[in-house]
């Protein structure tokens, strides 16, 4: 739709020369008519969004809206009143839905307060937390409704061999062993009720549906975030102009925070000025080699640390003395507590190694601070994902051969990891933030108040969420824990933030880092979980004595049995047909991959073409500017010349081409 511009285009002053007031008014009226007709042709939703986005004062927008409405009304065949009533009540209904939805948004006021005190980059952490909470709540609701409730109602088989002791909350064994918390508490019988409810299928399909929905939601969020925040990096993007005009955070309302932001801005402007004043010397060859070798050394150290931690965890897990002793004697408290050793070691690794990484990065020198942040994020992600990877390898390769009811064991391990991670998080808030603040302000003044490290906190959230997703197949009610944990962490972080920390100093490019975090949540985290669950479902033999898939070769066989059973019904033959001939044939997947590749290549070529077009257009703007300057210069010179000539010989002044009202004086006298 053509945009209404509030600002006069180049040369409008010149263009309006010679027009009367009536003509100008007529032209404004015409452009308004064009606007109204444009709006009428849009769909209803787009029309209202376009009306709301018109850059004119409210009263003019209202007149445009009334005119658009009357034009729409005149085009209908129903009577004006009826149609108006229907459309108005429909719009009111949509608006009331929107406001009802606002009630469901939790923490609205708290988030507003956080944003107004600490700015939008810190707020992005809390928004990310809230988004993860929604995933877990949804999973909890569907698991509870479709899997847990039928199991509880129809087949309660809680045969607790031990009473409830306090340690279960941490370790998840004992009392919880046979409950619906873990995989082992479910059985796969078909519940005999009016429509027969197949527990095997329910378990399989609920988890599959949830994972598919997560996939779709993550891809949608990632693509929307990428679209909104992608920056075409042509031309200087992080210079003074941006910092001066686009980076001030209007949502900060607190006086101290504003003063803090002003100081930061001044410091950053001074830094960028001094960078510009210093000539950037080209580094000599030996300097460059030195920097490169330092980088290489740092990377080797980081990867070495990650590998070492993985090896340590694997050996700890497969150590026969520590691993499975509790399985045999459920009353041995000491053996049970020793199962906590592995989670504690994992959490310690997750705590200490990133600190080592930040020490290592001090020996390197970076060309810009953003590279530093990204490299530190990559290293931490590599560490966390390799730790999780080695744990999954251990659970899927080593455990099924050695333990009966191994899925429950895996579920309990995940439960323990989550609990210990939560406890370490609480300890981290206390020691890392509270005590550090006390030390920084009272004992060692030079340390100062700790900064709120957004990257580290978000990566911790992603790690915990990956664990929760891994655990869903093995422990359907695990999201309960994750939901409670996220709730508590939200409030504790908020309190700790206001008491102990200050917002980060370098807040540039927060939107791009947001996109990176969502992409990280998708790519190593969710995709890894999906492949692990797929491998479990596709190739591993489920345990014989417990769980809904007892007796099958692989859990996926449920689907085969189901499709065999519906093959006999003529109404559902098409489902079987689709399954047999499309989903199970490899040709289908080859074709789809080929089509997707072709489309991707095509779209990539389009973007390349557009980039070229943007470059040419930019050059054209620069050239037009030069043309305008040239013409203005020439006009000024001409006018100067004319004035000089006029000051010598006023009678020749009449050569300028304007209408001389005394033209009768120039006629020859004898006419």
């Amino acid at each position, binding site marked *: 739709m053509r*945009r209404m511009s*509030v*600002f006069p285009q*180049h040369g409008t002053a010149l263009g309006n020369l010679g027009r009367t007031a009536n003509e100008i008014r007529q032209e404004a009226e015409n452009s308004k008519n064009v606007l109204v007709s444009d709006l009428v042709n849009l769909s209803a939703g787009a029309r209202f969004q376009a*009306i*709301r*986005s018109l*850059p004119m*004062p*409210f*009263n003019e927008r*209202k007149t445009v*809206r009334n005119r658009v409405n009357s034009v729409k009304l005149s085009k209908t065949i129903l009577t004006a009143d009826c149609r108006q009533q229907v459309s108005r009540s429909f*719009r*009111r209904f949509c*608006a*009331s839905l*929107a*406001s009802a939805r*606002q009630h469901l948004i939790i923490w609205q006021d708290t988030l*507003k307060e956080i*944003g*107004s005190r600490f700015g*939008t980059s810190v707020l992005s952490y809390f928004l990310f937390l809230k988004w993860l909470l929604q995933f877990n709540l949804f999973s909890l609701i569907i698991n509870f409704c479709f899997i847990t409730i039928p199991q509880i109602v129809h087949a309660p088989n809680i045969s607790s061999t031990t009473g409830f002791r306090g340690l279960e909350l941490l370790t998840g064994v004992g009392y919880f062993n046979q409950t619906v918390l873990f995989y082992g508490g479910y059985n796969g019988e078909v519940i005999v009720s009016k429509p027969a409810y197949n527990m095997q299928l329910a378990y399989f399909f609920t988890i599959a549906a949830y994972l598919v929905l997560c996939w779709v939601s993550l891809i949608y969020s990632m693509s929307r975030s990428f679209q*909104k925040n992608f*920056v075409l*990096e042509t*031309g200087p993007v992080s*210079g*003074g*102009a*941006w910092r*001066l*005009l*686009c*980076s*001030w*955070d*209007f*949502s900060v*309302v*607190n*006086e101290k925070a504003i003063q803090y932001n*002003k100081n930061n*801005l*001044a410091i950053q*402007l*001074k830094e960028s*000025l001094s960078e*510009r004043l210093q000539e950037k010397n080209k580094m000599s060859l030996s300097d460059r080699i030195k920097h490169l070798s330092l980088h290489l050394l740092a990377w080797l150290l980081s990867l070495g640390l990650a590998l070492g931690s993985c090896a340590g965890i694997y050996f700890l897990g497969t150590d026969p003395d520590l691993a499975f002793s509790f399985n045999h004697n459920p009353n041995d408290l000491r053996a049970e507590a020793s199962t906590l050793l592995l989670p504690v070691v994992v959490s310690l690794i997750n705590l200490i190694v990133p600190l080592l990484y930040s020490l290592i990065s001090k020996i390197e020198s970076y060309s810009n601070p953003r590279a530093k942040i990204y490299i530190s994020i990559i290293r931490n992600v590599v560490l966390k994902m390799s730790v999780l990877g080695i744990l999954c390898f251990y659970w899927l390769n080593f455990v099924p051969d050695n333990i009966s009811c191994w899925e429950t064991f895996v579920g309990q391990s995940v439960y323990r990891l989550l609990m210990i991670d939560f406890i370490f998080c609480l300890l981290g808030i206390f020691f890392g933030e509270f005590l550090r603040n006390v030390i920084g302000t009272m004992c060692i003044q030079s340390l100062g108040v700790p900064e709120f490290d957004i990257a580290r906190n978000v990566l911790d959230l992603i790690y915990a969420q990956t664990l929760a997703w891994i655990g869903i197949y093995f422990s359907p009610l695990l999201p309960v824990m994750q939901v409670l944990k996220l709730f508590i962490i939200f409030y504790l972080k908020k309190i700790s933030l206001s008491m102990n920390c200050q917002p980060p100093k370098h807040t540039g*490019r*927060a*939107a791009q880092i947001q996109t990176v975090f969502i992409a990280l949540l998708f790519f190593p985290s969710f995709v890894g979980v999906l492949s692990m669950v797929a491998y479990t479902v596709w190739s591993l033999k489920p345990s014989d004595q417990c769980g809904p898939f007892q007796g099958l070769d692989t859990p996926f066989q449920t689907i085969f049995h189901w499709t065999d059973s519906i093959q006999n019904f003529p109404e559902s033959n098409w489902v079987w047909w689709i399954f047999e001939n499309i989903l199970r044939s490899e040709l289908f997947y080859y074709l789809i991959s080929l089509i997707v590749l072709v489309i991707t290549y095509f779209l990539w070529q389009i973007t390349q073409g557009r980039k070229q077009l943007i470059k040419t257009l*930019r050059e054209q*703007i*620069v050239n037009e*500017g*030069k043309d*305008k*300057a040239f013409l203005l210069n020439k006009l000024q010179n001409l006018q100067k010349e004319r004035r000089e000539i006029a000051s010598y010989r006023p009678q020749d002044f009449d050569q300028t081409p304007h209408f001389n009202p005394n033209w009768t004086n120039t006629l020859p006298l004898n006419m």
Partner: protein
Amino acid sequence: MGNKQTIFTDEQLDAYQDCTFFTRKEILRLHGRYHELAPHLVPMDYTNDPDVKVPLALIVNMPELKENPFRNRIVESFSEDGQGNLSFNDFVDMFSVLSEMAPRELKAIYAFKIYDFNVDNYICKEDLEKTLNKLTKEELTPEEVNLVCEKAIEEADLDGDSKLSFADFENMISRAPDFLSTFHIRI
């Protein structure tokens, strides 16, 4: 649900809903806030569209605007007379553009108006200097202020007339994706 209020007619609320980014409830809440600013001036009954304007001095005392360095310019840009006296429609307009649902183009237009101190439809060097002084207050020396403004114009000016037109400003905004979330005041 909404039939019990007597501040606006239904048609008025529909118009507000269609033309701004607020729902009915938010409009009523905004009216409450507007009334709080000047209880003796602002009537509770808006059904006959009273012509009431709250002066600039009262509006910039709102908690959302009180500490903002640009509070005067923000209010002036949304007022019809350019002096900062806002009617209720202008008030709603202001917070609608500054809300999180307004699109980037609309926000860019008003941000340009805010930074254009001398209202000549260009952001020239003096406008940038005034912006910088509001944002840093005394930490930069005058030479540094001069240098920063020159560098800013050099970077953003595409057509070489040593001042920023709206097209230059919008081009810079399109390369700053954070703008949508930072140019945002919650009410």
